[in-house]
Structure formats: C-alpha cells, structure tokens
C-alpha cells in the first residue's frame, strides 16, 4: 500500500476500512497466540452455561484488529504510538466486524507529525462494540 504522508491527512478523514470475520478456528488461533484460553471463546457449551447465547470474539482480538488497521495505514515510515479500546459490546464468530478509524487531530511536536484518531469496531447493524482512540506518527513529504 502506498505510504500516507502527514501533509495529506486532515481532520475528518477516514482511514481505509478493514473487514474481519472470525471463524471459530481463528478464535482458537488467537487463544494460542495471545495466551487467553478462557473457554467462552471456543467451547460453546461452556459459553452457554455462563449465560451467553454462544461463543464470543475476544475483546483483545478486536483491539489487535484495530492495531492492524493502524499499522497498515501508517505504512513503512509511520509508527503506531498508541491505540486501544473499551470492550463495550460482544461480537460473534462468522459475523462481519468492520474496523474503522477517523482522524480527530493533527499536530507537530518535537519534529514529529502526530495524528490522533477515533477508532472502533462495528457490527453489521452499525453498533460500535469496541470504541477507542489512537495516536500515529506519519512521515513528512519534505
């Protein structure tokens, strides 16, 4: 993907969306990758015994999706300096999770070009299940 430069970014811009859809296999991969083996994410009987309708996607995986959204946008010369989200709503496997980000502030400080963003994951009905914020530094054209 082409490098995005600080001069090209303005408040209100949306970063290219990232669409995810987790199979149960991906949730098991994440359990191994992250070390979070809580059974509500891969054992349906266990999840239902806790009162859930079924399996749910790990909150930290949705956070990591936002990390990918930002990493891919910042490009080779940019850096993701801060990102995170609240685990506000649940997402299910085999359902689209749209990862989005909108620029809220741009400024320069100490020779660095900072971009602040609102980031979130969204369900097909538009509900924001993981609202958060991020800070990225981008290269300058000059």
């Amino acid at each position, binding site marked *: 993907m082409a490098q995005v430069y600080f001069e090209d970014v303005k408040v209100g811009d949306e970063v290219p969306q990232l669409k995810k859809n987790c199979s149960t296999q991906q949730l098991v991969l994440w359990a*191994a*990758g992250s070390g979070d083996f809580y059974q509500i994410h891969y054992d349906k009987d266990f999840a239902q015994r806790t009162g859930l309708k079924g399996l749910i996607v790990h909150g930290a995986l949705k*956070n990591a999706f936002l990390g*990918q959204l930002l990493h891919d946008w910042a490009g080779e010369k940019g850096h993701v300096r*801060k990102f995170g989200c609240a685990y506000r709503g649940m997402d299910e496997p085999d359902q689209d999770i749209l990862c989005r980000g909108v620029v809220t502030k741009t400024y320069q400080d100490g020779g660095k070009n900072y971009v602040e963003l609102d980031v979130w994951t969204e369900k097909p009905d538009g509900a924001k299940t993981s609202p958060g914020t991020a800070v990225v530094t981008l290269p300058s054209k000059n």
Partner: protein
Amino acid sequence: MTQEAKQSVITDEMRAVVGVEGAAATLEVEKTNCRMFARSVGHTDPIFYDEDAAKARGYRSIVAPPGFLGTPIFNPSRPPGAPGEMGGRGYSIPYKRVLNGGTEYEYFPENDVICAGDTITARSKVTGFEEREGSLGPMLITTRETAYTNQHGKLVAKMYGTVIQY
C-alpha cells in the same frame, strides 16, 4: 435509588497499593510467538513473519505485532495469583463477577521497537479505584498500568488496563 449512603468497597489496604509496583515479570519475545500472534490477527506485513524482510526495513529481527508484548514464562511450579486476589496483591473484593473493561497500548519507538529475541521486564501497578452505579448494579473499576522495559533497559511500551468488578 435510596438516599442511604452506600458502603464503599474501597478499603485502606486497597488505597495503600495504588501506585505501588508489583513484582517484575519476565516476558520472552520469540519469532514463533510473533508469527503466531500476527497470523491469528490476520496481519499481512512481512516484518511480522520474515526475518530478512524485517531486517531490510531496519529492524533487528521479526517485529512484535501491535498488542503483542511477549509471552510470560510458564512454569507449573509457580502458579499465578490465587483466585479472589488481584495479581497476588492480597486484597479481596466482595464482587464475584469480572469484566475486562478495555486495554490501551502505548509504544515508544524512539527508544526501541520490540523484536524477536527480546527479553521484556514488565512492572505493573494499580493506578486507581473508582466506584460507579451501572446498569449491572454497583461496580468497582480498577485501572492498572504496566511498563515494559527491554534487555537494554529501554522503556518500549506501556499498557493501560481497566477491570470492572460487580
């Protein structure tokens, strides 16, 4: 909602731990773990998979993907903190249910970037307690901050976590 003053669940022994760093934990950043984490997210950037690609971009080795701060060293003879305690700090909360409220990661790439081969020291502390009346009833919100330092003594990341008990 009655006008009676609610009993706070925040005790003096809890207030005493605010700002106090717990025991340091060691995390290993290995190539295989970086790849596994990146694969489970669906990353496509080769710096998370291929050492040559990472080196060509100026990194020491495979880069730890966003949100991956290393793997705690598992040892069955050293079990984690007992249930009911918060990270083995020795205070207990009357609420039974726990929710992970959210997590924020902060990186300091001007210090160093976390790469495979690194050994990270993590130091965690409670930064505050707050009580709130929510849709789930009375809640205790605990905020926590963990600082991650690499083998060269460089601060490479911080994690800010929120835990909700109700």
